[in-house]
C-alpha cells in the first residue's frame, strides 16, 4: 500500500530523516516510536507532503506522491486522514463545521457532508457537542474532534502525529480509547507516531523504532519490547519493566 524509499529531509544542517525505507501493507497498523527529534513526525508529514522531502520517494498504491501536481496532491490528501498533535482545529468554526467544512469544500453536498460529520462525531462520542466552539472543549475533546474530522473523509490511510502528546495524562485515556476502537473496527491503514508504549502494544501490527533520522529497529510489538536489539528498543523495554 505504502512504500517509503530512501527518504531524506534536512532542516538547515540538522538531518531530520536520513534514508528511511518503509513498506506498509493495506490495513496494517504501524506505530513509529523513538525519542523526541528522531524524525518521526517529519516522516509522517512527508507522507502527505505537509513537509516536502529533499530526496527519496513515497509511493502509495503504485503512485509516487512526490510526483503529484497540486490538484492531484489535494485529491490524494483527501484520502488521507491526519490527526495533529495540537488538534489544529479552526477556532472560529463550530465542532460540526470543523468536521464537515472540508467535505463541503471538496464538493460534497452540504447535507451529506453534515451527515458524515455527525456520524464521525458520533464515533468519537461528541455528537452532543456539535454546535460548540472548539475552544470551549477540553483538550481530549478537541483531539477527538480532530479525529472525527479525519474520519469524516473516510480515508484509506490514517496518519496520527502524536495525538496525545499535548494532553493531560487524565485526558490521554479517552483519546487512546477512541483511537484503539477505531483501529480495531476499521480496516484503515494507519501509521501512528506515539510515545504511548501500552497503546502501541495493544494496536500495533508492527513497531518502527527511529533514532537520529534512521529506522534502528522494526518488528512486532513482542519482538521489539521483549528482545530489542537497538538501544532505543532497550530503553523502551526498561520503561515497560520499570
Amino acid at each position, binding site marked *: 500500500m505504502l512504500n517509503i524509499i530512501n527518504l531524506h529531509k534536512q532542516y538547515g544542517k540538522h538531518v531530520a530523516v536520513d534514508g528511511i525505507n518503509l513498506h506498509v501493507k493495506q490495513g496494517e497498523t504501524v506505530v513509529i516510536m523513538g525519542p523526541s527529534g528522531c524524525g518521526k513526525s517529519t516522516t509522517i508529514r512527508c507522507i502527505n507532503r505537509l513537509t*516536502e522531502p529533499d530526496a527519496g520517494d513515497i509511493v502509495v498504491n503504485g503512485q509516487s506522491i512526490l510526483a503529484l501536481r*497540486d*490538484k492531484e496532491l489535494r485529491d490524494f*490528501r483527501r484520502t488521507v486522514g491526519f490527526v495533529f498533535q495540537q488538534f489544529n482545529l*479552526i*477556532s472560529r468554526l463550530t465542532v460540526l*463545521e470543523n468536521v464537515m467544512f*472540508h467535505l*463541503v*469544500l471538496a464538493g460534497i453536498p452540504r447535507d451529506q457532508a453534515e451527515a458524515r460529520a455527525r456520524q464521525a462525531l458520533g464515533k468519537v462520542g461528541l455528537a452532543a457537542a456539535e454546535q460548540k466552539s472548539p475552544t470551549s472543549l477540553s483538550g481530549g475533546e478537541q483531539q477527538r474532534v480532530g479525529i472525527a474530522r479525519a474520519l469524516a473523509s473516510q480515508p484509506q490511510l490514517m496518519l496520527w502525529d502524536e495525538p496525545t502528546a499535548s494532553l493531560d495524562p487524565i485526558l490521554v485515556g479517552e483519546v487512546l480509547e477512541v483511537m484503539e476502537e477505531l483501529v480495531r473496527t476499521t480496516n484503515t491503514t494507519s501509521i501512528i507516531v506515539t510515545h504511548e508504549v501500552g497503546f502501541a502494544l495493544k494496536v500495533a501490527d508492527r513497531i518502527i523504532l527511529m533514532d537520529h533520522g534512521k529506522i534502528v529497529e522494526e518488528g512486532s510489538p513482542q519482538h521489539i519490547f521483549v528482545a530489542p536489539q537497538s538501544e532505543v528498543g532497550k530503553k523502551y523495554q526498561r520503561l515497560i519493566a520499570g
Partner: protein
Amino acid sequence: MLHFFRDGFYRDFIILLLVTILVGTAFSSGIAWAVDAYFGDTVEQVIGDNGEYDMILHVREASKDAALRELERIAEQQFPGARVSQTITVAGQANFLFGFPEEARTEATFSRLSSIFGGVPGLNNYTVIVEPSVLVRGVHASVVETLQERFNQIDGVKFAFKDGKNMLVVLESAENSKTVINAIKNILKEYQVLEVRFPMGFEIDTQQTAETVMKLLQQHYSAAKMTNVTSAEYGEELDALVKTLVEMRNFLLSYASKVRIVCKPGVNLTSGEQIIVQGTSGQAPVEGEPIGEDHVIIEILDVHGDQAQGMIVAGSIADANQVLTQPGYRYLSEARVGSQIGQVELENERYRLNYTINESLRLLEELDELAVEASLAVENADSVLNTFQEALMQLEVLQVQIKQLNEGLAEKGAQSTSEQLIISLFLNGLLKNLTQANSDAVGQDGLDSLQNLDIEAMRASLSNIAEQIGSVQQIDVQAIIDQITDIRDSLPQLDDEEIGKSIHLIDNYIGGQVIPGERVQILVENTSIDESKVEPLIREKLSNQYLNTYSVAVGTVNPDTRTEVFRILKEVRATIAGIMAIVFTGIVMMLDHATIISTIKWLRSSKKKSRFRWIRIFNPAVLLSSVVGTLLLVSIYLLSNAEIPLISDSAIAIIGAVLGALIGWFSEKFSPVHTAEIMAGQALGLSNVQIMREIVIPASRPGLLNLLNRTRQQF
C-alpha cells in the same frame, strides 16, 4: 510562489488590488477634497469676497486695537467710504482687510501704500489683493519702469503698479483677464535677461566681463539691443552709492597733489608701477639704498609717451607751497631705491587752494574798508572839482579884466608916463604868468583848453563810481567771509597718503569691480538669444570652461492673490492626497497584504529550497509585497491627482516599493496567521484559495480583504 495564486486566488488578489486602488483613490481624494473645501471656505472668510478688499495688513497682535483705530482714521479722513475689517489672528499676527473706495483705486493710491499705512501701529507687512488683477512676479529691476509704462497701455488695463519685486496689473474687468494676460506675456517675451554665471567663489570684473560678452553677442545678434543690468537688481540705492563713489573719487583725485613725470629717454613706465621722490625730506633717495621714511612714493596712474601722471600713495608734500621738481627713482623690491627714471613735478593743490581761500578772505576783509575809503576819495574829488571850476571862472574874469585894463592903458599909451609903463609891464607879466600857469595845467592849448574841460562829465563819472562803491558797500561781505571760512574748514583734512589709499579703495570697488560677484546679467531686447548656442562662444571668449549661461525671464505672469491662494490650496490638496495615498497604502498593506504575504511565506517554508540563488537571497514574498506596494501607491497617487512637493512620481514608486518591502519583511508581526489551521487545511486537501477564503482571511484583521472575502466564504 506562483502556485499560490494559480489555483484561483489570483482572481481574489486582482479584485483586491483593484478595489484597494479605487477605495484608496476615493479615500485620498475625499480627505483632500474635504480639507480643500474647509480651507477654501476659510480663505473666503479670511480675504473676503471677490474684489471686496484690496489689502491685507499684517499687524502684531499686541497692537491690533491701536492698528484698527488708525485704519479707521485713515478710512474716515483719507478715503471716505473705505472698508476696514479685522480677520483672523494667526501666530501672534492680527490681520486686517482694507478696501479702498472705487474712486481711490488708482495708481497714485497703490503707489504710495507704504506712506499711507506706514503709520499703522504694529504693522509688520501688507499684502495687496486688489482684484481683478494680474500679478507679474519677479520683475527684473532693469525693466520695471518700461514694463509699467507698457502694461498701462494695454487695453483693459486700469493701471499697473510696482509691489516689491512684483508688479500688479489691475484690470478694468475680470473678463479682460485672458486678453491682458496674453498681452503681458507677449510684452515679457520681448525682453530677455541673459545671465552668465561663474562657478562659486569665482569673482569677476562684472563691468568688463559684461562689456566683453555684449560685444561678442553683438557680432552674432546685431539687431539686439543690449544693456548691462548686472547691478540693476541690487536696486537704485546701490546705483546711487556707485555714482557717489565715482564723484568722490574724482574729487579726491583733483584734491590730491598733482604728480607729473617726464621720463628720461629709454625709460618706460607702466600704470600701477611705483616710483620714489625726495618730497620735502632732507635726504634725497640714493640708488640701491633703502627708501627713507620721509620719501614720497608715487603710483603711476596714466602714461602717455614719455610723460606720465601719478598719485602719491605714501609720504606727503603737505608743507610744500611751491611746485617741486625732483628726480624720480624706480621702486625696487624690499623697499629699495632703483634707477632714476626722470624728473617728477609735484604740486600740492590743497596748499594752493588753502592759500587762495586765505587770500580771498583777506581781500574780503579789506574790501569793506577799501570801499569806505574809496567813497571818501570820490567825495574829495568832487569837492576838488568844484573848487577847481570856481577858480577857473575867477581866472577867466581876471583875465578879461586884465585884458581890458591893458587895452585901456594902451589907448593912453601916447601920453605914457613911466608910471603907466610900469603898470603895463606888470599886467602883461601877470597875464603871461596866468597863461603860463594854465599852460602847465591843461597842456599846450593854454587857458582855452582848461576852459574846454567837461566838468559835468567828470562829475557824472564820479557819481557813477560813488554808486558802484555804494553797491559794494551794500554787499554782505561778512556772510561771504563766513561761508568761505566754513568751506575752508569743511575741506577734508587728508594728506596725500590717505587720499591715495581712499582712491585705491574706491577703485577696487567701482573701478575694477562695479559689483563684485559671480555673474553678469545682460538685458536683451528685440531678439531672442539661445543661451545654449552662445554659451560655447562666451566660454571661449572669456577662456572659462566652467561658466554657464542662462536665460532669465524679466517677469512671469501669475494669477492674482486670490487665485494664488486657491492655487496654493490646490497644492495643499494634492499634498494631502499624496500623504493620504501613502498612509492608505501603508494601512492596506498592513491589514490585507501582510496576511497574504505571511501565508505565502509560511507555505514556502515547507517547500524545498529553490535551486535559484536569487530566490534564496531575495524572498519572493517580500519582492511581491514590494511590487504590490509600488503598484498600489503609484496608482492611488496618480488617480487621486496627488502631488507632494519635491517628490517625483518615481520617488513615490520607490516609497511604495520600500513600504511594501518593509511590510513584507515584517508581515508576521503585522498580521500573524494561524499556521496550525493552515496546515490542517492543507492536510484536508484544501486548495490555496480555499485555505485563504475559509481559514486565513476570516481570521485576519478586518480590512478590505476580509470584507471582500465575505461574499465567497462558505463557512
